[in-house]
C-alpha cells in the first residue's frame, strides 16, 4: 500500500511546488505547500485523485516560531488514504481563502478556527459567532491566552469551602471513635 501513497505524493510533487512531504503511517501522508498552492492541491486531490471528503481542518499554534500550522485532511473512500495538506500562516490577522466551494462541511471547520484562532476565511458564508456568545476577549485557543487568569478576573471561586478543607481520613477516624464511645456508653 505504501508505494501507492508514495506514487501519490510523487504525482502531486510533479504538479505543484511541495516544500516537504512525509509518510506518517500506513494510509496517512503529510505535505507542506504555500498558501497560494493550497487551493490547487486540494482541487487536484478532489477531482483527479478522487479524495471524496475533507475529514477536518487541523490548526496548531507554534508560538515559539510565530506561526499557525493549518492542515487540511482530505480522505478518499476508495483507497482509504488521508493526505494532510499543511500551510503556515502568521499568528495575527492572517487570512486564507475559504475551501467551502470544494467541500461544503469546510464552512463549519473554518468557522470554528476563525472563532478559536482568529484566522480570517474570506468567502466563507457563515463566519459569525459559533460557540462563544458576546465574546470580547482575544481568540481563546491561541497559546498566549491565559485561561486561569481569565477565570480569576471573571469568576469568583468559592472561598469559604477552601479553608475548611479537612483531611478525609482523619475525619473518618474521629467519627468511628465517637461511634464506638457512644456504643460503649449505651452498653453500661
Amino acid at each position, binding site marked *: 500500500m505504501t508505494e501507492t501513497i508514495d506514487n501519490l505524493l510523487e504525482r502531486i510533487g510533479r504538479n505543484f511546488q511541495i516544500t516537504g512531504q512525509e509518510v506518517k503511517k500506513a494510509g496517512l501522508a503529510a505535505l507542506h505547500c504555500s498558501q497560494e498552492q493550497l487551493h490547487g492541491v486540494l482541487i487536484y486531490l478532489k477531482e483527479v485523485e478522487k479524495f471524496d471528503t475533507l475529514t477536518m481542518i487541523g490548526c496548531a499554534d507554534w508560538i515559539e516560531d510565530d506561526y499557525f500550522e493549518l492542515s487540511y485532511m482530505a480522505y478518499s473512500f476508495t483507497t482509504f488514504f488521508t493526505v494532510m495538506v499543511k500551510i503556515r500562516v502568521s499568528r495575527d490577522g492572517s487570512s486564507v481563502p475559504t475551501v467551502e466551494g470544494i467541500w461544503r462541511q469546510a464552512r463549519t471547520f473554518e468557522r470554528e478556527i476563525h472563532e478559536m484562532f482568529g484566522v480570517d476565511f474570506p468567502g466563507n458564508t457563515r463566519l459569525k459567532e459559533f*460557540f*462563544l*456568545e458576546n465574546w470580547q*476577549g482575544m481568540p481563546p485557543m491561541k497559546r498566549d491566552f491565559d485561561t486561569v487568569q*481569565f*477565570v480569576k478576573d*471573571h*469568576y*469568583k*471561586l468559592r472561598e469559604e469551602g477552601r479553608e475548611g478543607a479537612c483531611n478525609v481520613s482523619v475525619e473518618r477516624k474521629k467519627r468511628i471513635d465517637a461511634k464506638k464511645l457512644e456504643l460503649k456508653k449505651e452498653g453500661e
Partner: protein
Amino acid sequence: MDNLNKKDKAQLKELKSPMAVVDWAVNWFRKQSIFMLAYGTGCGAIEIPPTVTARYDAERFGVRGAATPRQADVIVLSGYLAVKTLKRVIRTYEQMQEPKYVIALGSCPINGGMYWDSYNTIKQLDRYLPVDVTVAGCMPRPEAVLEGFMALKDKIQRGEAEGARDYRDNIEKYKNNQKEIFGDKMLPGYTCDWYFSDGGSF
C-alpha cells in the same frame, strides 16, 4: 393515603394550630407531585432518562416531566453551565411559577468542578440562582438523583424550599452577580421587573 410514611405521621402529630395543619397539607401536596422541566443543561442529562424510565422510575414518587417552564416546579441543572446556557436557564427559571426549586447535579455547579480552569463555564451556581438541593457525583447515578428528589421533598415538607422567595427578596444581589458575567448583554427586564420594589428594570 398509603404513601404517608412514618416521617409525615410524626410531623403531623406535633402540629398545634389548624393553620399549621393547612400549611402542612399544602406542602404535602406540593411534595407529592413535582413536575421536572425537560431541560438537559449539562453532561448529567444522560442520567435523567434512566431516572424517569423503567428501571429507577421517578414517577413512583410523583416526579413527572413538564414540557414548558410554565408547567414546571423544579429545574434540574445537570452538571456545569456554560455562560450561554446560564442566560437561558435564568430566563427559564424566571418564567416558572412561584414555589419553584433548583436541583444542581454534580460538583461543577458548586465550585467549577473538573472545568475550574475553563473560560466559558461558571464556577458557583448559587451566585446567580438560588439552589435548593445539590447532588454530589461527577454525574450522579440515578439512585443519587432520586435521593436528591427525596431531599427536596423533605425540604418542601419542612417549608424551607423557598429559593424562589430568596431570589425575589434579594434580586439586586443576584442581578449584580449576573451583570458581572453578562456585562451589558443582560437579560431583558420584563421577566423580573415586578420583583423590584420600585419596578425598575435591570
